[in-house]
């Protein structure tokens, strides 16, 4: 039977992971990877945000209703970005 790790231990592991990701993103930024610099930095930031949301903010153990609210927030953010950038990136004469 899988043993559920204590909450304090989970927080500790997430915290160490966040610090390692911070070191990784700073180190990656010191090298010139061309356009990949931005992709790597954005990906690492997304993983960090996901860790904080899932474990520090307990979204992982939340009810479906809470998960739905979080997803709705992100959906609206996607609408904001995709519609605005669709304009700015495809209609250069504006």
């Amino acid at each position: 039977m899988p043993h559920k790790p204590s909450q304090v231990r989970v927080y500790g592991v997430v915290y160490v992971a966040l610090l390692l990701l911070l070191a990784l993103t700073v180190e990656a930024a010191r090298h010139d990877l061309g356009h990949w610099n931005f992709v790597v930095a954005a990906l690492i930031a997304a993983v960090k945000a996901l860790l904080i949301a899932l474990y520090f903010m307990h979204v992982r153990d939340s009810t479906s209703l809470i998960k739905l609210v979080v997803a709705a927030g992100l959906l609206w953010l996607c609408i904001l970005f995709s519609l605005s950038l669709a304009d700015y990136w495809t209609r250069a004469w504006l």
Partner: protein
Amino acid sequence: MSRELPAAAASPLAHQFDDLPQQREADEMGMWIFLCTEIMFFGGLFLAYTIYRTQDEAAFAAASHELDLFWGTVNTAVLMTSSLTMALAGHAAEASRRKQTAFLLLATLVLGSVFIGIKGQEYYHKYLHGLMPLWGLPFEWQGTSRGHAELFFDLYFLMTGVHALHMLIGLGILVVLIVNASRGGLLGEFSAPIHITGLYWHFVDIVWVFLFPLLYLIGAH
């Protein structure tokens, strides 16, 4: 009937809820709805950043190079540590450990204040170097693409400034929590305010997680 009133006053359950899990879910959902509005609020700023950066990536990288990567990294670590102490404070409150809860909340307050202090010192250096294009202050930019470099610093001060304002509000709430927790409130079934404040605090942390690479890292190499 008169027997019910003192019992109701001491109960952690507000009368409109069936049970504690339902109340807890409502508490959390209320904060998450507020955070959704915050996602859109900061989202607009991130969108403005994206649009102006794609117009002149070289200018944004050159302007970003002027930021202090060392202090930015230290501040990120400080903020993450404060998120850890905040999460642990919620755990301690649930376990009704009064001293530990108050100590962890105090640690969060101190770490948050350190973050604001470092931020203020960075602002002061930008002011000294003429890189604070606010309130008609001179913008002394030596490189090319002056316009977009100035836009970068406008966005830097706007985004980190609004973020710092959220931190200050969080610090104010923490003071109230510390006073209540050290008096023995907010423990066990009464710990909801600490969890709700934690959600807010972690959200502000997440905003910084994206601000840090966008502002400090794009010009690091």
